[in-house]
C-alpha cells in the first residue's frame, strides 16, 4: 500500500468507528426502552402483538432521537 491508500483507509476506519459507536448506543437504548414498553410481562415467547409493538417502538424511538438531535443542533447554532 502506498501513502495515499493508507491515508484513505485510516479515514474510512475512523468514520466507520464513529458511526458504529453511535449505532451501538442507539440499539442499546431502543432495546432497553422498547422492552420495557412492549414486554411488560414476558411470556414463554414474544407474541405477535409484542413484535408489532417493538417495530413501532423502534421507529418511534429513532424519530424521538432525531427530534432531540435537531433541537440540540439548532440550539448550538443559535449560540447558547
Amino acid at each position: 500500500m502506498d501513502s495515499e491508500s493508507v491515508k484513505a483507509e485510516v479515514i474510512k476506519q475512523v468514520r466507520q468507528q464513529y458511526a458504529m459507536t453511535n449505532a451501538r448506543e442507539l440499539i442499546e437504548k431502543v432495546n432497553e426502552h422498547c422492552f420495557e414498553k412492549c414486554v411488560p410481562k414476558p411470556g414463554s415467547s414474544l407474541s405477535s402483538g409484542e413484535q408489532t409493538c417493538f417495530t413501532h417502538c423502534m421507529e418511534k424511538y429513532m424519530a424521538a432521537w432525531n427530534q432531540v438531535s435537531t433541537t440540540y443542533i439548532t440550539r448550538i447554532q443559535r449560540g447558547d
Partner: protein
Amino acid sequence: MDASDLSNFDLEKLNEKDKAELRQFLGNENQKARVQSTEPRLSIVKAGPAASHANPRLSRERYEFRLTSAPPLSVVVHSLTDMCWKKCVTGSIKQGAMDKNEQSCMANCADRFLDASSLTMKHLQNLRQG
C-alpha cells in the same frame, strides 16, 4: 482513537504530506464530535488521587467540581433522548410515528433540560466567586 485499531495498516508508509492531512482530519472529526460550546462545562466527578489541582473550596467529601470540555454531541443526544422519552412517551405504542404532542414534548424537554443545566452552571459560578 485507539492505536491498536490501526495496527493492520502500515502507518510507516505515510509521507509527511499525508501525515499532516490525517492530523487535520482527526482534529476536524474530534471537533465535530464535540461541538465545543463557548464555555466549559462544570461537572461533578468523584475525587481521586489525581485531583489535587481542583479548587479545594469546592470539593466536598468524595466529590468535587471540575471544569471539563463539553461532552461529544452524540453523548448529549443519546442521554437527552433517553431521559425525555421517559417523560414524553407515556402511553402504549400504537404507531411508529410520534404524535404532535410527543414531538413538542421531546423538543421542549431537551431545550428546558439544557436551560436548567446552564442555570446550575451560573449558580455554581456565582457560588465560586462569592
